[in-house]
């Protein structure tokens, strides 16, 4: 059990943190959520059968939601932090332009929570739809269509803003 959890953490450290940050929107709370989730998993002594990855992601997601509930109204809205880092100062080292960076960040932030979680788990955690479905306790088709809807929504948002920027 211990080795399994350590392996999952080692393989999905960034994805787990990004998911927690996408929910809590505060770096320190995201780290706390990951820590809390593993603390619960260590102490629960659950025997994992099959793929442990969805189970660990579900635990981190639940811990992040708990962290959010603990934040009071104003504190929840203040200091909302994106999952994305700032761009490198050197333009040549940038994989995306400053404008793309801003638009994508805004588009992701505007997604409904469930769609944003699906995008984060698919693209940034590298999970399969089957793993995401088991982590969220949702049917596979629901998760897949949620993901597609999120991409379409982001595409429309980016296209709309791109057109507006060119006009």
């Amino acid at each position, binding site marked *: 059990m211990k080795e399994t959890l350590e392996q999952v953490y080692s393989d999905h*450290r960034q994805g787990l943190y990004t998911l927690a940050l996408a929910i809590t929107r505060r*770096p320190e709370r995201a780290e706390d959520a990951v*820590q809390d989730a593993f603390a619960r998993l260590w102490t629960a002594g659950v025997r994992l059968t099959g793929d442990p990855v969805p189970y660990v992601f579900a635990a981190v997601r639940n811990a992040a939601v708990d962290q959010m509930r603990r934040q009071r109204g104003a504190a929840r809205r203040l200091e909302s932090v994106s999952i994305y880092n700032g761009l490198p100062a050197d333009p040549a080292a940038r994989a995306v332009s400053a404008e793309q960076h801003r638009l994508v960040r805004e588009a992701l932030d505007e997604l409904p929570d469930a769609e944003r979680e699906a995008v984060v788990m698919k693209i940034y955690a590298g999970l399969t739809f089957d793993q995401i479905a088991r982590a969220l306790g949702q049917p596979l088709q629901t998760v897949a269509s949620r993901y597609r809807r999120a991409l379409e929504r982001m595409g429309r948002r980016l296209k709309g803003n791109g057109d507006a920027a060119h006009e």
Partner: protein
Amino acid sequence: MSNEIEDLLARMPLRQPAPSMDAKVLRAPHRGRRILWWAAVGGAVGAAAAVLLVAFTLFPGDGDRVARDTNPPAPVPKTPTVAKTDPAPVRLEQNWSTVAYEGVVAPDNQTPLRRFRRRMFEHVQWIDPARGTRMEMTVPHEEVILIKATAY
């Protein structure tokens, strides 16, 4: 279009967790036990404080006199804890006592006596885990002790 969006999303630079997160997560088992330990200690201290608060509410006493006591009241929990296994009810009993010196008195204007006031509190709880009920009772006692003052 979806592929373009996916490519764009994949190229976005992600915020990294602090390196300290690794140490926190990997030592999580100890943290879990520490939380339980602190919860147990906190619960015990809280229970003791609550009983003392009830006791001092029942016996507000003379503030100046209490302040002068050279021997401040210290809770002396005698805990003959009777912990039975579920679903049998559990009875918890705690007793506290304090002694305050009140100076020399001479009731008959002849024999000097040292007067002590002893206050005792019996706190009993009955907990029935099967029914989820709890009953508490606090019984205060007070007695005055007079001891003949010896002249040297």
